[in-house]
């Protein structure tokens, strides 16, 4: 046990241990008490038999043995025996002993002193251990009581630091994890201490390496601080740091471990509570998100669908004037743009919330290309579209809806930047178990500065046309990645922007069309 000069109040355990030691004061006390007993007995020497005096002195020795150590009791016994011999056994004032019974009594002093001294010190040792245990039990009880009253992690730490100080006189620090296994870079105790890079690294490797079954419970930091892993039943809340150079007994180690376990459990409880609150919060926000998503998508789509439908209907009947036709055509185009914007926003939020689930099936790439080029018929009209899909193209295992959006956004993007009447090339190929799509336009291409940012949300390349949110490409990339594929952008060697898409195409059971020609 470490003695600490800064202790705010005396350490109970230390007090007992100090008192159990045979200090100088005890010898002093034994000499004085024996002397007093002899003095008190001296008037009796004439009236009573000197044997009675020996009983009285023996009684005093016995009495002393109940509260003094073995040494002082032996000293008292020797003093009593010698003074009794010197003053009370005739011939008085000599150490001469004649009678056999007196020699026996003289020896008895030492035997009684020894036996009683050893016996009582043993009893006292047991008693001390019992008291020590009681104090520890009490300490653990008050610790667990105080910890159970703590409302949050800060309070748990404050109580733990305080109790460790009271019990062990050690200034403890705690490095906690964030709930996902990453340690804090601050050690928290009576004050907050910032960990050095080396300390942090060592703490992390100690924390992460210590698996639940490992026997290693301690590590040492450069500042001679011991790291003790705080173990929980489900998660380990972190590490406790203590400056401890003392040798500890088995019992003390196990006490300290129980103590630490209590703190660990309290911290873990707070952690799990925090996680539960977080989960609840997430569930709440998820519910809110779903409601908002559904409402917004519904409330925006319906009016736009109505505008699109109405303007389209008007365009289908003979117009009264060419001006009217042009105006309705403008309304229709604008509503299509609005519709595209809503779809992109909804898709972006689906991506952002991780709500994309790929539902793949076998699809013909021709179908995909036809659907998208059909939808973009108006936008692609000013261009020459060159589509090259090999005859032997096998079906691809993909989510049609998502890939449709990818190709739509890429083609729409090309239509925005390629010069009118230029050629937009779309090539599909099957390589191994991958589908490759390549889209090349003959526009200005990208500036080198733009290329790394093209797929960022809301990024608008320099020289972009006005309009558009800058979401299309980032959605295309997101949806491609949802297919475990890649989408890269660059400039074609012959000029113009070039997008290369690659997704796993699945393993077709029917390798080529020829294989089943004769069914």
């Amino acid at each position, binding site marked *: 046990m470490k003695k600490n000069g800064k202790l705010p109040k005396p350490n109970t355990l230390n007090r007992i241990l100090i008192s159990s030691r045979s200090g100088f004061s005890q010898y002093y006390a034994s000499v004085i008490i024996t002397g007093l007993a002899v003095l008190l007995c001296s008037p009796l020497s004439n009236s009573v038999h000197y044997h009675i005096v020996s009983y009285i002195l023996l009684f005093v020795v016995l009495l002393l043995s109940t509260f003094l150590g073995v040494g002082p009791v032996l000293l008292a016994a020797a003093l009593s025996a010698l003074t009794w011999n010197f003053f009370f056994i005739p011939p008085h004032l000599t150490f001469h002993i004649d009678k056999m019974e007196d020699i026996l009594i003289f020896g008895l002093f030492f035997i009684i002193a020894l036996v009683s001294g050893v016996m009582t010190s043993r009893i006292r040792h047991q008693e001390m251990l019992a008291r020590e245990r009681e104090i520890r039990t009490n300490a653990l009880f008050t610790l667990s009581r105080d910890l159970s009253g703590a409302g949050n992690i800060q309070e748990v730490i404050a109580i733990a630091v305080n109790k460790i100080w009271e019990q062990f006189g050690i200034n403890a620090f705690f490095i906690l994890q964030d709930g996902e296994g990453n340690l804090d870079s601050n050690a928290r105790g009576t004050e907050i201490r910032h960990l050095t890079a080396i300390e942090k690294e060592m703490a992390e490797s100690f924390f992460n390496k210590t698996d639940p079954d490992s026997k290693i419970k301690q590590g040492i930091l450069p500042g001679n601080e011991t790291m003790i892993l705080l173990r929980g039943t489900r998660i380990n809340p972190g590490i406790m740091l203590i400056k401890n150079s003392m040798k500890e007994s088995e019992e003390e180690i196990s006490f300290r471990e129980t103590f630490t376990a209590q703190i660990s459990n309290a911290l873990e409880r707070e952690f799990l509570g925090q996680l539960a609150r977080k989960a609840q919060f997430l569930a709440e926000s998820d519910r809110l998100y779903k409601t908002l998503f559904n409402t917004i*998508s519904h409330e925006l*789509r319906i009016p736009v669908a109505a505008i699109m439908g*109405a303007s389209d*209907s008007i365009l289908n009947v003979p117009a009264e004037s060419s001006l009217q036709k042009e105006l309705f055509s403008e309304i229709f185009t604008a509503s299509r743009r609005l519709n595209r914007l809503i779809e992109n926003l909804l898709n972006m939020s689906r991506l952002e919330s991780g709500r994309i689930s790929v539902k793949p099936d*076998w699809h*013909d790439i021709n*179908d995909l290309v036809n659907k998208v080029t059909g939808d973009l018929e108006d936008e692609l009209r000013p261009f020459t579209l060159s589509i090259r899909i090999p005859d032997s193209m096998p*079906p691809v295992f993909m989510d049609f809806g998502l890939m449709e959006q990818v190709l739509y956004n890429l083609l729409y993007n090309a239509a925005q930047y390629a010069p009118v009447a230029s050629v937009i090339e779309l090539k599909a190929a099957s390589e191994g178990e991958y589908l490759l799509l390549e889209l090349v336009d003959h526009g200005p291409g990208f500036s080198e500065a733009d290329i790394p940012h093209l797929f960022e949300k809301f990024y608008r390349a320099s020289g972009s046309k006005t309009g558009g949110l800058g979401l299309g490409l980032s959605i295309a990339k997101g949806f491609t990645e949802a297919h475990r594929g890649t989408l890269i952008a660059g400039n074609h060697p012959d000029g113009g922007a070039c997008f290369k898409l690659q997704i796993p195409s699945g393993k077709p059971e029917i390798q080529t069309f020829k294989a089943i020609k004769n069914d």
Partner: protein
Amino acid sequence: MTEDETILIIDDELQIRRLLEITLKASGYHTIASSNGKDGLVDAATHHPSAIILDLGLPDIDGQELLKKLREWYSKPVIVLSVRNSEADVVEALDNGANDYLSKPFRTGELLARIRAALRVGDDKSDTTCIEAGSLSIDLTSYTARKKGEILKLTATEFSLLALLARNSGRVLTHQYILKEVWGYGYTGQTQYLRVFVAQLRKKIEDNPAKPSLLITESGIGYRFGE
């Protein structure tokens, strides 16, 4: 154009309902509109419309349930309205007896074409032996198909596939339905088969197999034989 066809619209969205009514009236149809499922069922029973346009997202009754209830006694065409990215709902509705679908936002031309096709399906065509589509003619009794007068070399499966789609000209047929009808129960789920056969068939019957006009893909749902 049939003058006396009455079409019932069941949709809770006022704007969509009105848009449909105006468009259909302009094309010479009579219309009745209901804003919820309960009223829709009553209107269907009292007016016996020639066709029903049913929105799948109704506030009171689930569209699929309403469709099942309707189908207990109503045998005329039902076209369901769906939103984007809800192919699974459409397939379910088609399985529950819907004849066709339209996804919002839809083009007017598309809407009218679907209604025309659906109303025509109502006519009994079971004794038709010869189907003409563009330069293609299919003789169901002799199992032959000709393109511009020339007999096409079709395998038995290809012919059954073509005949099935052609008999239901203009209507969407789901993948599972086609697989079940042409290949049998053991093949449902084998969309890959279907893709390969359709691609193969397109090469034989289409003028431009890459841009098919007869065998039209309804992505995520099935195929439709174009008119």
